[in-house]
């Protein structure tokens, strides 16, 4: 009889199940839900209600983070569709893509070693625009001409880019302290 805490974030946020997302609606709905469930709203109530509020607010945060970020949302869509993207293990990527990755990586590590903050920030921007292209592809593969296998492969590419993004961030942080 109770709402399943663990099912479908799209339904929870009243959004259609698609890759393209109405960010404004997502945020509005997020705040609306947190207004209801946040532990601060239930702090003066008995234990059991406080615990439930904790679970709900946790769930709402999780849902928001999942739907808000492109990569997380794409992985979640695959998950819902029962496609095992075998994300951690299946790394059979095209040689061109892998080559490109190597080049990126070298550029980052050179800039890091040289302590070149400007170059790192430049790489950051280039990477961002590369990621945007991949995200556009995902929109097509999920919403326009659904092809989940191709989407899974594209998701894997996006993961590589996200990893690189983190590496640049870490390099910048390391240079700062």
């Amino acid at each position, binding site marked *: 009889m109770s709402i399943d805490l663990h*099912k479908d974030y799209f339904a929870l946020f009243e959004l259609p199940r698609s890759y393209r997302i109405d960010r404004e609606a997502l945020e509005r709905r997020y705040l609306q839900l947190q207004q209801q469930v946040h*532990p601060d709203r239930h702090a003066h109530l008995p234990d059991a209600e406080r615990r439930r509020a904790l679970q709900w607010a*946790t769930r709402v945060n999780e849902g928001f983070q999942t739907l808000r970020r492109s990569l997380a949302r794409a992985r979640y869509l695959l998950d819902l569709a029962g496609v095992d993207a075998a994300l951690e293990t299946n790394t059979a990527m095209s040689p061109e893509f892998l080559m490109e990755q190597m080049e990126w990586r070298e550029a980052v590590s050179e800039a890091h070693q040289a302590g070149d903050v400007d170059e790192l920030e430049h790489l950051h921007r280039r990477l961002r625009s590369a990621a945007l292209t991949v995200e556009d592809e995902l929109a097509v593969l999920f919403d326009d001409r659904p092809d989940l296998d191709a989407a899974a492969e594209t998701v894997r590419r996006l993961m590589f880019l996200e990893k690189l993004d983190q590496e640049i961030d870490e390099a*910048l942080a390391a240079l700062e302290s």
Partner: protein
Amino acid sequence: MALLQLSEPGMSAEPHQHRLAVGIDLGTTNSLVATVRNGISVCLNDADGRAMLPSVVRYLADGGVVVGREAMQAQSIDPRNTITSVKRFMGRGLKDVTHIESTPYDFVDAPGMVRLRTVQGPKSPVEVSAEILKNLRQRAEASLGGELTGAVITVPAYFDDAQRQATKDAAGLAGLNVLRLLNEPTAAAIAYGLDNAAEGVYAVYDLGGGTFDISILRLTRGVFEVLATNGDAALGGDDFDHRLFCWSLDQARIQPPSAQDLRRLLARSREAKELLSHASEAPIVCKLGSGEEVNLTVGRDEFASITDNLVRKTLAPVRKALRDAGLRAEDIKGVVMVGGATRMPHVQKAVADFFGQEPLTNLDPDKVVALGAAKQANALAGNRSADEDWLLLDVIPLSLGLETMGGLAEKVIPRNSTIPVARAQEFTTYKDGQTAMAFHVVQGERELVSDCRSLARFELRGIPPMVAGAARIRVTFQVDADGLLSVAAREMSSGVEASVTVKPSYGLTDDEIAEMLKSGFDHAGDDMGARALREQQVDGERLAEATRHALAADGELLEPAAREKIEGLLGELDAAVAGSDVGKIKQALTALNRGTEDFAAARMDKSIRSALAGQKIDQLEV
């Protein structure tokens, strides 16, 4: 009671029933208590009309304890028994304490947290902090004329789990019901934001006596959303004093002084530092025990140059916070300055240069944290009025993770995640027939476990023997709205479970707290016993009342048998409350709390459903 709150959560069903709640800024140097009176947040003053209580505790040989200004005056005559800046030791082991050589204390390296040896025996930083909190509690109760329902205690945003837990323990020891631990810069943002109806992205730069925090927040229509936070839990005005103290020793060419001299010279250094915020030079004059005299003058520029590296040290966290928030300095609409140390002109200049704008100093940097905490306490206690319908979304400052093979830290929850947050990760066995698995919970950003803070270790035992890699062990991290972590592990095929609230390695164990409370009771005598009884009775009455309202409102959600069971438990609680056995009341409270869990869940779901305007219920009932 609770049903009315389903439509307007957080609002008191009976507005006339005002609950006494306070916000407490437990500072390194100064502590304050504030409350909301007639909708306005005010600091509560001591008998002499002062809001700030120096965070100094002196233990006397006769068993007495002195807190505040009087204790501060004794610091150079009785340095060992007069504890200042105890916040620096909260949740810290001996190896973590900076500048240990210039503290006059006799440390004992107890497991988890240091102890300080005093005439009254070894004291943990938790006990010392509890004395400060007790003093403020008494001040508040005298001023408000009743017992407190609860308190919001502020902590530096960059405090880790051990330091937060220690703070919560101290409040418990002081007899306070902790409504929430609130991050100091967030508290300041609430006070500033509500008073100025601010909208946009703001930075809060909080340099206090012992800690530095930077938080980036987005303020939109009553929502305070922390985007990122960073800082240094061991950097503050104290370090500027210390720099000036070292400079003085150097200039005067004197040997490292005795404990008394050390206190004296440090105090003179601090006075000079504070004077330099208004004057271009300041004297440092001090007669030492040896008869030698220090007689120096320090100029503002000299002081700025010897402390420049400290100021720069605050800017690295600022950059990191901005990057984590995905923003640049020019995206910040205003910079709110908090903490006494932001009065230093060279700090203000560095911040202005960095952000390309003058920081906002139109608020009292000493009081703003306590005032914000009071607003939050008022709301949490259920006194919220319709125009106080704001929402606070905060984050954890440091990543939480587990040790994996090779001493590496695997992040489970990344820093700056909005709380409450939970994350699960699966592990498996690496040997055939393996029946136990050990977990080491750590906090920090570094790759090596040895560079992170160790929070807890625990074991999952009784895993059924299987071939290597067959068991599925799910470890769940849950961080609550106080920013406190609990961890549970479960073997999925057998359901064997183990869990910890992260406490053992740095906080106090429940037994230790019970013991301290007991010794507290022994001192204060029956008075405390009566208070404990009254507190339980109030809790009992409150729960009984809430449950009756819930039954009246949503009774139809229950099967007749379930309802009967709850009514039975309710009767038992009523009977216990009418008696005078604290233990019995506690038992009945727990039983009713447990017994109404499913009911509460059903009611919460109902409220969510009613919130899903236009949403078909059956779509959610998957």
